[in-house]
């Protein structure tokens, strides 16, 4: 659980004719993490293996199938309940289907793209003609004169232009259409050309090219529009026929793509092996527990011709990491991977992470309403994105955190959507405080042990945060000692020293919060008298330095810890003392985020409920809208910041005490089959 699965290094050796069987078997069993063979320089006896002859043709088929899949849009098509195909069926029909894909799909998609191209051209033509639509002269009349100059384009001030031109000469003709800017076609005798150009530029003239072709623009546009309608219909039909093709061929294309990918993987596997003239050698990591099983499977399949030898692992070897966690913890591994895969030799903290992350997350949310929303959205994410592993993991984490949030909401904070069930002990006289009990007019017997928005509640939350931080960092340091013990005892002692200093600091802080602790533990007074009569006084006895009570136990632990730290890792260790104090304070974010979110929700609630209770229907409806929108805002912002802060506490405060990471993930040789069923029986 705290360690990845134990790996064994295996070398599989056999004669070349047996290579295919071996590859098939390993591919099917999906347990070998193959190491690529790197030939030594100057080596002439052993070289990299050659891919199977079939690999080129398989690749070609794969490319055809993939392009087919792409053309009919299978890539981003959510396949609704596609049944798996047997590999026999895929193999039998593959060549025929590839021809079908080439003939039907290619031609259908070509037809579609032809139509799309035509449509594009028509759009362009309409765009070009549109400005001239209002001018009722045929296009061919706008060009090709010897004695007349034509200006076509837009002007901003047509009246000014008309006046100016008519003053200049009578030898002109002006056609115009009014729009935002006036479209004009101006015909002037050549001898007035330059003056006219000057006048035009004063009227904000922008030249436009007269479109090619002949005919009256408005008629041409109408023609193009009707042509476009016909094409749109055709495009629709082409799309329908592609959808039809997708429906008909999706299953086979997906299955064959998967089959071919797996086959290509197998055919190209030899390039990762070492080969001599007559034999092959596969160097791989296999989970120790599976070694025997693979050995006997290989020997049976190849009639004892291929053998598997386990070789000794040295400490320089870095085996790939296959985390070994219970099913409920697995989804949390992605949080670990986002940081770094653990190295093979260190502790895998997934279990702690899978408990503490949702605990912190839930504590910061601490509200049964938001908690239930989180559970619902977690389940929704798992249902809707069932195929996507990472979304499934996120959904699971959200759901577990939601359970913690609801528990905290009911048991500790007694609130739902930022409203407590009962009013607080310290409510101010005359201030309107809404609670679920007062709104629903009934007494809901869920008490708030801690009121987030009251000063005494905040103090209590801060104390809880520090206690949580102490336990969390302590576990981190403990893991650190275990990890370091084998490599470097000095560092292990350094961690132990930090543990002492941390404990000293913790006692100091708890001493400051002594009153709160005493109140919390009051009910245990009878059952554990030694805690109150002996332990507590012994720990809190001390001096007063600068107005602060410093217990002797803190002094002793800090001094002893510092001495051990300096003697084990040197003066540089003193920096870690500062760091660890910072880290302990850093956990107060648990309280800070919780309070901030609670206060925000309370403010919006007071606003919204006040509006609803105002008696005015319009204001009341507006109040409901405000309330719902603001609640969603608090929920989304709150869960985002709480989630990030919860994971940060793992990554920074917890992991930095022990975690190195940098491991390689175990990637078994094989293919995850979604659309095909592997042949049963022997692998050959």
């Amino acid at each position: 659980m705290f360690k990845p699965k134990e790996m064994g290094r295996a070398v599989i050796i056999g004669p070349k004719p047996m290579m295919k069987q071996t590859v098939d078997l390993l591919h099917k069993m999906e347990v070998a993490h193959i190491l690529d063979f790197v030939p030594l320089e100057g080596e002439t006896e052993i070289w990299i293996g050659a891919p199977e002859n079939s690999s080129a043709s398989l690749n070609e088929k794969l490319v055809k199938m993939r392009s087919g899949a792409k053309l009919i849009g299978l890539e981003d098509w959510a396949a609704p309940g596609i049944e798996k195909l047997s590999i026999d069926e895929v193999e039998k029909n593959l060549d025929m289907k590839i021809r079908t894909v080439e003939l039907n799909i290619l031609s259908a998609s070509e037809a579609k793209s032809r139509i799309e191209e035509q449509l594009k051209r028509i759009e362009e033509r309409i765009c070009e003609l549109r400005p001239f639509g209002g001018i009722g002269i045929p296009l061919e009349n706008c060009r090709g004169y010897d004695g007349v100059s034509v200006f076509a384009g837009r002007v901003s001030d047509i009246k000014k232009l008309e006046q100016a031109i008519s003053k200049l000469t009578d030898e002109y003709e002006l056609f115009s259409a009014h729009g935002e800017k006036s479209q004009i076609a101006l015909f002037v005798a050549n001898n007035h050309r330059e003056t006219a150009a000057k006048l035009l530029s004063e009227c904000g003239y922008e030249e436009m090219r007269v479109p090619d072709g002949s005919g009256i623009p408005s008629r041409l546009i109408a023609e193009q529009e009707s042509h476009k309608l016909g094409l749109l219909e055709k495009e629709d039909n082409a799309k329908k026929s592609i959808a039809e093709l997708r429906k008909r061929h999706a299953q086979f294309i997906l299955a064959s793509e998967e089959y071919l990918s797996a086959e290509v993987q197998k055919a190209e596997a030899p390039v990762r092996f070492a080969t001599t003239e007559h034999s092959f050698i596969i160097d791989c990591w296999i989970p120790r527990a599976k070694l025997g099983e693979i050995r006997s499977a290989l020997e049976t399949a190849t009639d004892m011709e291929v053998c598997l030898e386990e070789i000794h692992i040295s400490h320089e070897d870095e085996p790939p990491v296959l985390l070994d966690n219970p099913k409920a913890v697995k989804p949390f591994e992605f949080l670990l991977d986002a940081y770094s895969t653990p190295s093979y030799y260190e502790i895998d903290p997934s279990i702690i992470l899978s408990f503490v992350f949702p605990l912190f997350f839930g504590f910061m949310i601490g509200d049964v309403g938001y908690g239930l929303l989180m559970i619902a959205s977690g389940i929704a994410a798992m249902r809707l994105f069932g195929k996507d592993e990472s979304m499934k993991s996120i959904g699971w984490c959200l759901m577990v955190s939601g359970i913690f949030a609801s528990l905290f909401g009911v048991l500790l904070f007694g609130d739902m959507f930022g409203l407590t069930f009962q009013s607080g002990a310290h409510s101010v006289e005359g201030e309107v405080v809404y609670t679920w009990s007062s709104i629903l007019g009934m007494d809901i017997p869920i008490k708030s042990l801690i009121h987030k928005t009251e000063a005494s509640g905040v103090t209590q939350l801060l104390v809880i945060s520090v206690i949580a931080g102490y336990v969390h960092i302590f576990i981190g340091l403990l893991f650190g000692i275990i990890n370091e013990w084998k490599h470097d005892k000095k560092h292990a002692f350094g961690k132990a020293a930090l543990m002492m200093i941390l404990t000293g600091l913790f006692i100091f802080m708890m001493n400051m919060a002594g009153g709160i602790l005493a109140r919390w533990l009051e009910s245990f007074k009878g059952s554990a008298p030694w805690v109150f009569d002996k332990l507590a006084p012994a720990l809190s006895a001390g001096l007063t330095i600068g107005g602060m009570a410093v217990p002797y136990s803190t002094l002793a632990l800090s001094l002893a810890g510092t001495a051990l730290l300096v003697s084990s890792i040197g003066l540089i260790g003193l920096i870690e003392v500062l760091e660890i104090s910072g880290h302990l304070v850093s956990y107060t974010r648990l309280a800070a985020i919780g309070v901030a979110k609670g206060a925000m929700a309370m403010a919006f609630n007071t606003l919204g409920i006040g509006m609803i209770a105002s008696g005015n229907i319009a204001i009341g409806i507006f109040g409901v809208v405000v309330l719902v929108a603001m609640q969603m805002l608090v929920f989304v912002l709150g869960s985002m910041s709480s989630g990030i802060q919860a994971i940060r506490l793992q990554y920074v405060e917890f992991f930095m005490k022990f975690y190195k990471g940098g491991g390689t993930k175990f990637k078994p040789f094989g293919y995850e089959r979604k659309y095909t069923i592997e042949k049963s029986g022997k692998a050959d």
Partner: protein
Amino acid sequence: MAIEAGLIAIGAGLAIGLTGIATALAQKEIGSAAAGAVAENEKVFGKLLIYMVLPETIVLFGLVIAFMLMQKI
């Protein structure tokens, strides 16, 4: 007492306000660098998230101090 309480409240406000600004300044730099780095290589997201939230500790110190001050009123 009224003036004292007021001064303490101002102190608490300054503690949280100034540390908030400090955090924001630090996060501004880190955030823009991190956005660029993630655009280039998504794998570093986890590491950068840590760098991104590191400065938040500063404002937490401010919060704790502010809170301790407020309790003196």
